C-alpha cells in the first residue's frame, strides 16, 4: 500500500520572544495508507507539533509535507482550512465538543461546510453516532454524557465527513482505564474495518499497543520505531 503521509526534512522553529526554539529537527517520515501509528516520547519531544503539522494545523519552518499527494506545506490558510475539512478528522484529549449543542449537532458541525442538505447532514451524523454506539444519546448535550461518551461523540465528529486521515492527540489522556480501552478499540475498528489511517499521540504504552506501529521522538528527532502484532 502507498504512503498517505510523506514528510521530508521537516523542521519547526517557534519564536518565544527573542528566543528561537527548534521543536522538530530535520524529521523524515512516511505513513502508509491504512496505518495506525502511535507517536510517543517525553513532554516537549515534539509529538504534538508533528501531529499538528500532519493535520495541517501548523506549517513547517523548513521541509515538505505531502498528505494524499497534496503538498500541504504550500497551502495558504484558506486552502488549508478547506483541505482539513475534506481530508482530516481530529480527536483531542479534552474532547472539545461545543457545550451548547447536542451530540447530534456537534457531529453535524463538519458537514456544515459541505453542500449536503439539512436532512442529509442529520442522516450522516446519525450514522456516525451509530457507528460509535451512541445513537441513543443523540439529543444529549456534552455535560449530560460521561467522558468516554464525549470522546466517542468527538470521534463520530471526526469521521462524519469520511476523511482518510484521523489525527488524535492523547485521545485517552482524560479517561478511566475502561473508557480508554473502549475508545482505543473503536479507533482500531475504524482503522481495520473502515481503512482509516490514524496518527495518535500518547504517553500511555498500553494505548500505543493498539497501534500497528509506534514511533518515539526525543528532542525533536525520531529515535526509534517499533511494530506491533
Amino acid at each position, binding site marked *: 500500500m502507498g504512503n498517505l503521509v510523506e514528510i521530508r526534512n521537516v523542521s519547526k522553529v517557534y519564536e518565544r520572544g527573542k528566543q528561537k526554539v527548534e521543536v522538530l529537527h530535520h524529521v523524515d517520515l512516511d505513513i502508509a495508507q491504512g496505518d495506525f501509528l502511535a507517536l510517543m516520547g517525553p513532554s516537549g519531544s515534539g509529538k504534538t507539533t508533528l501531529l499538528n503539522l500532519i493535520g495541517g494545523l501548523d506549517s513547517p519552518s523548513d521541509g515538505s509535507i505531502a498528505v494524499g499527494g497534496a503538498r500541504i506545506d504550500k497551502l495558504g490558510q484558506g486552502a488549508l482550512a478547506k483541505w482539513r475539512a475534506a481530508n482530516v478528522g481530529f480527536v483531542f484529549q479534552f474532547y*472539545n465538543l461545543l457545550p451548547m449543542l447536542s451530540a447530534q449537532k456537534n457531529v453535524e458541525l463538519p458537514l456544515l461546510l459541505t453542500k449536503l442538505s439539512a436532512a442529509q447532514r442529520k442522516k450522516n451524523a446519525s450514522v456516525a453516532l451509530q457507528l460509535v454506539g451512541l445513537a441513543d444519546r443523540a439529543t444529549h448535550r456534552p455535560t449530560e454524557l460521561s467522558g468516554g461518551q464525549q470522546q466517542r461523540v468527538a470521534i463520530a465528529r471526526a469521521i462524519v465527513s469520511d476523511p482518510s486521515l484521523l489525527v488524535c492527540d492523547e485521545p485517552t489522556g482524560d479517561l478511566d482505564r475502561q473508557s480508554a480501552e473502549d475508545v482505543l478499540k473503536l479507533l482500531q475498528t475504524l482503522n481495520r474495518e473502515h481503512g482509516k489511517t490514524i496518527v495518535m499521540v500518547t504517553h500511555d504504552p498500553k494505548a500505543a499497543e493498539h497501534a500497528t506501529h509506534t514511533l518515539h521522538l526525543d528532542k525533536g528527532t525520531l529515535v526509534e520505531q517499533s511494530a506491533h502484532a
Partner: protein
Amino acid sequence: MKYFHLIWAALFRRKTRTILTLVSIIAAFLLFGLLDAVRVSFEQAGQSANGAERLQTGSRLSFIETLPFSLGAQIERVPGVNAVAYANWFGGAYQDPHNQIFTFAVSPNYIDMYPEFVLDAAQRKAWDADLNGVVVGSVMAKRYNWKVGDKLPLMSQIFPNKEGSKNWSFTIDGILHSKDPSQNGFFDAIVLMHWKNFDETTPYNRGQVGWYISHVTDVNQSDRVAKAIDALSANSDHETKTQTEQAASANWVKQMLNIGLIVTSIMGAVFFTLLLLTGNTMMQAVRERTSELAVLKTIGFSNANVLGMVLAESVLLLVLGGVIGLGLVSILAPAISAGSGGMMHLPSVGIGSWTLGLALALGIGFVVGALPALRAMRLNIVDALAGR
C-alpha cells in the same frame, strides 16, 4: 442560514448574561422609540390645520407677546369663523411658589368652545355673575379638597393686583369635569378666572389678549381660515400665527426647548453606553469561547466563516433587542397618548423610525462585533488549543 442554530446557541451560551444585555438593548431602543415619537409628534404638529375645529391664534414673535383686544372682532368677521374666545396666561401658585397651577384668564364664552368638558349649569350661572369667581378642574379640587364657595388664594409670579400685591384671592364657583372620564387630563387640572377681572385688576394688562381661539364652521377649511386670520395682522406690529391647538402647544414647547437636540443628545449618550456594554459582553463571550472557536477552525471553518459568525451573533443580539424595543413602543405609544387625555399625541412607530432604529441596531451590532470578530478570526489554532 445553516449556521443560524450555531450562532443562536453561541448567543445564549450564557443565558443570564445574554438576557441582561438584551434587556439593556430593549430599554435603549424603547427609549429611542418613545423619544423619536415625541420628536416626530413635534415635527408633525402644525403641518396642516385641516381637520381641526378650533384654531389658536397667538403672536408670531413669541408666546409671551400679547395681541390687541380689537383683533377679536376682526377675527369674528373672517368667513368660516363662527365663534371667537380669548385667554391670557395667569400662572398662579398655590400655597408654595413652586406649586404652580395652570390658571388662565378667559372670555365669558371660553367654556362654550370646549364641549369636551362640562360645568354644572347652576355653577356656570353663578360663575358668570361673579367677577371674582373661578372654576377649577376636578382633579385639582380633589387633590386640594377644594369645594364650591371656598376662597382660593393664588400667587401670581408676574401680575400684581390693584394694591400692587401678587397675592390674589378668588371664590370657587364651580368644578370642571371632563365629559369622558377616560379623557381625564388637561381641563381637570386647570383654574379659569374671568379675563375681565384680570384685565381690570392688573395694571400690566390693559386690553391685551394672550391668544384667541376660533371655532370654524367647516373643518376642511381650517387651513384657509388660519391663513385668512393671519392675513389680518400681516405687516403690523402684532403679526399672528394661527394653528391647531396641538400645534400651538408643540410650538410653545419648541420655543422653550430644542426637542431634536435633546432627543439626539439623550440617545447619543444611551447608545454610547450601549456600545460599551455590549462591546464588553461580546469581547467576554469570545474570550470564553477561544477553544471552541479554535475547534471550529480546526475542523475546517475558514477565517471568514468565524469572522462572519461572531459578527452575526453581535448583530443578531442588537437587532433582536431593537425589534423588541420598538415593538414595545408600538404598544406603549398609543397607550400613553390615550392616558394623557389628549395632552400628548405620540404617533405609532412609523416606517422612518423603524428604518432608523434597525439601521442603528445593525450599525451598533457591526461596531460592537468588529473587534471580537477580528480577534476570533486571527486566532492561532495551535496556541488556542494549547490554552496559550
